[in-house]
């Protein structure tokens, strides 16, 4: 298909429902969509304000989940009793 030829799309074959849009989201965010799938996805995004906001909020919450756990390993202490248990267990296998 000639990409420049705008008249060839958007056409019926490029239209998907919001429900189908949903099934593409995981791969879209991971940039795992094939070119034609991506085109269909973006086309729906441009046409549908509801999915636009939906996607924006969806991505916001992913970022949020990441941020929430981002620093929780900073103060990482191992109890001495666990160190001793591990070293003792290792000795047994020696």
């Amino acid at each position: 298909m000639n990409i420049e030829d705008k008249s060839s799309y958007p056409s019926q074959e490029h239209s998907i429902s919001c429900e189908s849009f949903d099934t593409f989201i995981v791969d879209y965010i991971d940039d795992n969509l094939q070119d034609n799938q991506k085109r269909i996805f973006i086309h729906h995004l441009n046409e549908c304000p509801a999915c636009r906001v939906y996607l924006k909020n969806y991505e916001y919450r992913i970022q949020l989940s990441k941020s929430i756990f981002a620093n929780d390993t900073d103060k990482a202490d191992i109890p001495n009793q666990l160190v001793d248990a591990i070293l003792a267990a290792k000795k047994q296998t020696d």
Partner: protein
Amino acid sequence: MDLSKRINTDLSEDELIVQLKKGNVDSFEFIVREYGGYLLIIAKRYLTSEADAQDAVQDTYLHVFSAIVTFEGRSSLKSWLHRIVINISLMKIRSNKRRLVELIDDNASFFDANGKRIETETEITLSLEKLMADDSQREYIKTQITQLPQMAKNLLLLKDIEGYSTKEIAELLDISLPSVKTGLHRARLLLKKKIEHQLR
């Protein structure tokens, strides 16, 4: 212990791995002290009981002790340990025979008969920085994540927090790639339902 013999942090990772492969006891103790706390926090994300998490960390090190000879250094030691502790934690969940919870699949309620989205959301305007600065908000959301049904929680942790690819997750959880993708999507929507009101 003779402190002069202690492995110190100046040792390069390559040298450390050489020592570990030789079976050097001090280097083993070093990685227990250096990474043990970190691994314990990771294990606790998956296993709710402290005792189970400690067991997972201990099993991780015993595994590392025998598997270090096969370590090729394609990733850092820390991310290798990270993956092992997750594997072992997930195995514990399975061996506990805890049922993998079915995730909500009544997607139908979100769409009309033509597959059109029923509800139009408003955009979240609360800034992430502001939200992260609020301790009680942060704790609340964290609790909502850790209290999700086991499968939903695992998928969210592995993907959105630990950053594994959907392919890697399929291997780790021993489920199909399409199941990972649909499960992950549903897990995210489940979390949405739980925290939505907090984000307004």
